[in-house]
């Protein structure tokens, strides 16, 4: 329970055995009474076992489906088990669970709340093509969603029951689809989106999924995905 609402924390994880125990432990410590579902997406390390030992419920996918595939599984679980709020948190410890009540507060008047860096809190810097991609995505998506969005690819999100039901039925597994396309889709259907500034921390262990060398490719793909999301219905 967060603010009296049945809450599920969904953590997509790929080879995060170094940090997942601390993340699950911290979430359960800071937010007593929430349920934690770790979706292990075909990890080759001990992520699933470590998460289960830390007290999380673990759903183990037989092979890698990507963040989008893992998240749809999470939203289906939330829908089928009657959760009122579902919150996505990264398995690498970058998201501070102490912000969760703030996100849930805003769900009173919104349907999807995003925890965003670059919104005044914390010190998280990005430069080069990756930065340009973020600026482009923010500008276009803010317009589509009719609200200021500065960190559109954030994996820290809270969804209410209506959005849980929508995401359980439809959630893209494509690259960047889980962030960019879901935002366009959600906004187009008239749901209210809001962002909350959060400080992001350094990942605790393991390696991030993107390297600086891929930044330029990322910019191109972000542009393609965005264009596609905008022409799609």
């Amino acid at each position, binding site marked *: 329970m967060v603010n009296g609402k049945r809450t599920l924390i969904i953590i997509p994880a790929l080879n995060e055995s170094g940090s997942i125990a601390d993340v699950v432990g911290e979430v359960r410590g800071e937010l007593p009474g929430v349920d934690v579902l770790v979706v292990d997406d075909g990890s080759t390390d001990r992520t699933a076992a470590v998460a289960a030992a830390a007290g999380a419920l673990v759903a183990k996918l037989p092979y890698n489906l990507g963040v989008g595939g893992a998240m749809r599984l999470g939203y289906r679980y939330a829908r089928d088990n009657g959760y009122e709020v579902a919150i996505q948190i990264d398995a690498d410890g970058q998201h501070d669970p102490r912000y969760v009540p703030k996100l849930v507060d805003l769900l009173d008047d919104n349907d999807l709340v995003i925890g965003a860096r670059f919104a005044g809190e914390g010190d998280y810097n990005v430069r080069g093509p990756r930065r340009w991609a973020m600026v482009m995505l923010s500008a276009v998506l803010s317009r589509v969603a009719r609200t200021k969005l500065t960190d559109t690819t954030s994996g820290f999100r809270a969804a209410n029951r209506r959005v849980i039901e929508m995401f359980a039925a439809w959630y893209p597994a*494509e690259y960047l689809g889980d962030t960019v396309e879901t935002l366009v889709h959600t906004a187009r259907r008239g749901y209210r989106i809001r962002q909350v500034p959060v400080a992001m921390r350094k990942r605790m262990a393991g390696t991030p999924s993107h390297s600086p060398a891929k930044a330029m490719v990322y910019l191109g793909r972000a542009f393609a995905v965005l264009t*596609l999301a905008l*022409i*799609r*219905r």
Partner: protein
Amino acid sequence: MKLTLVTGLTGLLLLGTIVELLRRRQLREKYGMLWLAVLIIVIPLSLFPRLLDNVAELLGVASGVSLVLFLGIVFLLLVCVHLSWEVSALEEETRTLAEDFALLRAQIDADRAARDELVSTDG
């Protein structure tokens, strides 16, 4: 002139079909992008088939049109190979799924048998 009209219209029709399939989410992004890229090359060529004449001469090919035909066939072969590769990956995934399913069923049957055993010894 007539030929240009036929090839050009075919190109545009293909473009329309692909965009519409993408819009309806019938085509995944990775395939859609591939075909869009192809059409962006093919449409100018279908309108101006002589575009590649210079390149053809450089490579020793008699005419730009033959060069386009040759490249087209090479490209289609590559697409076929790619699709075979995708199908192989899919077969591997369904195999894993079937195994997981069989293991789950075996586990459930074993649990049920153990429970029935308990009930019969109790009763």
